[in-house]
């Protein structure tokens, strides 16, 4: 049983995400977009989890890596002939070239990783609140530059005509890749060292673990996955502004992670799916939905309910829905054991 546990831990999140993808494929196009959004948010939250969950350090900066990745993937996949008109000011290198869908993901991942590594080298020396505020500063700077500098993008305007390649298939495949990498990382030597620093930084340093270096690796990996998730996002929406991947996404993705359970991959996946599920359902209910009876909610209820859900979950279960544990079938084993014992007991008494 022990040997198969890692497989079960990985299979849980993967099966859940695939199931959401498969269910989504049986719905109408208008509804499928909700399933896509949920799956893409799994990718974003798991990317965040790779750093925050494993290191225990709060970061508000991961959305900036997602937005850099999204911009890179978006700008480079808009057809060259439309770029001359919509992005007249950008550098010729960006304006006169375009790449395919697959390469845009490679590019987004690489840029996310490089940016996170660069930022992380000085910032990963910080802990606690200082780290939180410094990463928030990175988010503000990134947003400011993307919003103003028209040589690298549309500035305050809208980047449009991005090929919408992220359907359910690409979203699910992308999310599975992110989950797989996150799972692989947390089982490697590096991942375990980082988790040791999370539990007790002093003890970890005493056995020769460099806290700075381990946090930096995770930050860069998380940046790479965030960039990748940003590319998934931009190929789903088809257009992009600087405000789309900013404060709201930062808070929402952190909330999803904490609600699911910060310290486990399973928690990240469950939190993302649950919050976006409730969010989409109520979004539908605002325009009227029939669930046995006609449900019509006033506009704005969605946000109130999501906020209340977040607050209640945290008050009632501060370590998240999953309690920060990985997926396991232990309850199943326990139930089977109980059944076997219950079946065995009368015979023992009889003999």
């Amino acid at each position, binding site marked *: 049983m022990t040997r198969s546990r890692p497989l079960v831990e990985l299979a849980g999140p993967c099966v859940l995400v695939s199931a959401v993808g498969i269910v989504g494929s049986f719905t109408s196009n208008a509804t499928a977009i909700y399933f896509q959004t949920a799956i893409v948010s799994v990718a974003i939250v798991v990317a965040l989890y790779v750093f*925050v969950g494993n290191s*225990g350090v*709060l970061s508000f900066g991961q959305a900036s890596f997602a937005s850099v990745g999204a911009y890179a993937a978006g700008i480079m996949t808009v057809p060259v002939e439309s770029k001359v008109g919509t992005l007249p000011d950008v550098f010729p290198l960006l304006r006169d070239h375009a790449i395919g869908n697959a390469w845009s993901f490679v590019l987004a991942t690489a840029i996310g990783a490089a940016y996170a590594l660069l930022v992380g080298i*000085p*910032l*990963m*020396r*910080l*802990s*606690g*609140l*200082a780290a*939180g*505020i*410094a990463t*928030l*500063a*990175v988010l*503000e*700077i990134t947003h*400011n*530059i993307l919003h*103003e500098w028209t040589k690298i993008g549309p500035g305050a305007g809208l980047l449009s005509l991005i090929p919408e390649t992220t359907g359910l298939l690409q979203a699910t495949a992308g999310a599975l890749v992110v989950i797989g990498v996150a799972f692989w990382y947390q089982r490697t030597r590096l991942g375990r060292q980082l988790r040791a620093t999370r539990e007790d*930084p002093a003890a970890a*340093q005493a056995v020769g673990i460099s*806290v*700075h270096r381990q*946090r930096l690796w995770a930050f860069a990996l998380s940046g790479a996955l965030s960039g990748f998730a940003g590319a998934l996002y931009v190929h789903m929406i088809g257009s992009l502004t600087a405000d789309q991947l900013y*404060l709201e996404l930062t*808070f929402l993705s*952190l*909330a999803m992670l*904490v609600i699911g359970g*910060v310290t486990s991959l399973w928690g990240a996946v469950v939190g993302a799916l649950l919050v976006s599920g409730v969010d989409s359902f109520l979004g539908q209910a605002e325009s009227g939905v029939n669930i046995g009876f006609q449900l019509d909610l*006033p*506009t*704005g*209820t969605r*946000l*109130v309910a*999501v*906020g*209340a859900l*977040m*607050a209640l979950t*945290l*008050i009632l279960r*501060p*370590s998240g829905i999953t309690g920060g544990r990985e997926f396991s079938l232990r309850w199943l084993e326990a139930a089977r054991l109980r059944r076997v014992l219950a079946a065995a007991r009368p015979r023992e008494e009889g003999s």
Partner: protein
Amino acid sequence: MIVAVVDAQNLVDALGLGAIYALMAVGIGLVFGVLRLVNFAYGQLIMAGAFTLAYASRANWPTWAAVLACFGVVLALSLIMEVAVFRPLRTQSPAVMLVATFAVAFLLQSVALLIVLKVQGQLGVPASAVAQLSRAVTIAGVDIRKVTIVSLVVAVVALGLLAVLLGRTTIGLQMRAAATDFTTARLLGVSANRVIALAVVLAGVIAAAVAVLLTARTPYVQSDFALHDTIIVLVGVVVGGIERLWTATLGGFAIGFASGVINGALPTDKSVYLPSALFTLVILVLLIRPAGLFARGRSSVVERV
């Protein structure tokens, strides 16, 4: 390249903003001291106060009644927040508490949006009850809005009263003890619930005062009222040094004053990258002095690895 025009007018305006931010920093710092909790929902308390003012002025209440209602609503909300959210989460990790205050902030903001959309059919409500505060008086050739003077007076008086309370009364001593070492203070007979409730009430009173002042500055109240100000103040508080109240306050004042001067001094087309410059400075300060610019010695909570 950058032509900065810093004149007396500009400095006075910046002082007013700095005073308001200093007050917000006190409110955030007080709660952090006893609870180790960064209250992100502090801005939404102010927003609730501002909406109370706005709706009171729509109902043509007299100014004193509107201000009184503002204080009442903000205080009630603060106490509800402490009992329903802070108290059950007191023993949790800082990350959980911070995200819980996000959730509360998000909830309050969405409730405000819901009410405004329902009642108003538009995004904001103007608050005219305190409008006379935004009129200007001219002193020595400088146009000073009354609200600037009032902000400075309120900030000085509030800080003075707080200094007396913390320095000269038993409960103030208990609060300082709790802020230094909560566990030991409790062992010595300090009631945790009492000091925390007092800190929350004081922070609430300050939030209500800030609501009045900010509404006088920007009378159009929307659901994201004071949200951006809170983020800036939080940054200022951490940069100044959140461990101690006066360094936090100084940090809040400094960032308010700095953004006031910068916004006023530069033409708009030159100042687009100023947020980047400001936040780069923030990162530098944090790297060099992680415990805060004005903090003394090394802190146990924040250190470099």
